[in-house]
């Protein structure tokens, strides 16, 4: 008798609750895909350019950097979102910085242990993920006011949005500057040994120009105009 009553009660309670959202509902997919093009952190929101350019001479370090940043954004978003109701508003910046710095230290130690050459190549730029504006920006704008799972998806979207831009920049810089892709000598492979390497692309100047052109093309396509 009492068991039956319990069951009825449970059903009633469930009816009152809103139906659970699907793991990959339309809204959540949008959270991930928006930062790829229309809300891209680099080309539209102008965030995270600091580290975006310095590592893009070759594609391999760029890939490692992209993975590291995505890892840091996803997990800092998750952690801050989990404790968002416990953080006093006045000290939130320092709390966020502490969480980010811890995650970056993890990445840096892991690289040092398993991929030392890459750690040497990236040098200070692993540490500079701490001050990458994308990470801080997502924490402030999203994780402080949203649920953990959504925040993780948002971090994933921003990380991928950052990744594809810097990979595109590094693709052109490595192809034109060193004649290779991921270290594979493309032009020698097709028998064009005399391919003139563009020294400008290896130089920081090349990064500015390539990114400027990518932004131009992307904004022309999406029709976004800055005022």
């Amino acid at each position, binding site marked *: 008798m009492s068991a039956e009553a319990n069951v009825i009660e449970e059903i009633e309670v469930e009816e009152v609750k809103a139906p659970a959202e699907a793991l990959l509902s339309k809204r959540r997919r949008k959270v991930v895909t928006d930062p790829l093009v229309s809300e891209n952190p680099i*080309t539209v929101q*102008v*965030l*995270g*350019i*600091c*580290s*975006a*350019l*310095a590592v893009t001479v070759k594609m391999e370090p760029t890939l490692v950097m992209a993975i590291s940043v995505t890892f840091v954004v996803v997990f800092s978003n998750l952690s801050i979102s989990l404790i968002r109701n416990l953080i006093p508003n006045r000290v939130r*910046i*320092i709390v966020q*910085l*502490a969480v980010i*710095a*811890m995650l*970056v*230290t993890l990445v*840096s*130690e892991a690289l040092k242990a398993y991929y030392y050459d890459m750690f040497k190549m990236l*040098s*200070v730029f692993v*540490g*500079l993920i*701490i*001050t*990458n*504006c994308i990470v*801080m920006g997502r924490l402030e704008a999203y994780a402080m006011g949203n649920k953990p799972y959504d925040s993780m998806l948002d971090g994933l979207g921003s990380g991928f949005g950052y990744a594809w831009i810097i990979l595109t920049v590094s693709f052109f810089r490595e192809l034109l500057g060193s004649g290779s892709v991921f270290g594979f000598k493309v032009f020698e492979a097709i028998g064009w040994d005399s391919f003139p390497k563009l020294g400008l692309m290896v*130089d*920081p*100047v*090349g*990064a*500015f*120009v390539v*990114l*400027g*052109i990518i*932004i*131009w*093309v*992307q*904004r*022309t*396509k999406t*029709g*976004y*105009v*800055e*005022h």
Partner: protein
Amino acid sequence: MELFNIALRGIFIDNMIFAYFLGMCSFLAVSKKVSTAFGLGIAVVFVLTITVPVNWLLQEFVLKEGALAWLDASFASVDLTFLQFIMFIAVIASMVQLVEMVIEKVSPALYGSLGIFLPLIAVNCAILGSSLFMVQRDYTIMEATSFGFGSGVGFFLAIVALAAIREKLKYSNVPGGLKGLGLTMLITGLMGLAFKSFIGIAL
């Protein structure tokens, strides 16, 4: 002479913006007007000249392998290098807060013009970047101070110059997609090319 050389390198050759892309976020965001760019530039010079030596002391007497030996001989094997990031960023954030309070007390006029930029600086890549470079290059404390100052001046020069160019460009007819960020990146590229001509200068 060596100190002057390091400062000069920081300003012209290893310019924070044009050679290492550090501090790009604020470089792009706060370069629409010369007066605000000037304020941010001064604040960066100020904070860099203070934080780099402070972080040097921290690295030398706390973080480096065996640095704690001055406390007790048994600490000589302690290596706290893994705390580097978290300590540096904490020092920077608190120094910025401190500088802000001191300026507010001493010179309200300067505080009025720098006010909003100071908190921004805590997360400026150029500040943390300089501290990390200082560790990597094994500077002495005097060299570190001169390097911090030089990097700051380099940033100041770059942001004021860019702001001046962007003010002039306001009245030009630029294609829609290139407006704003796109064009700014291209200009920065050209400015970087100009700065290349300083390579090789040494005293």
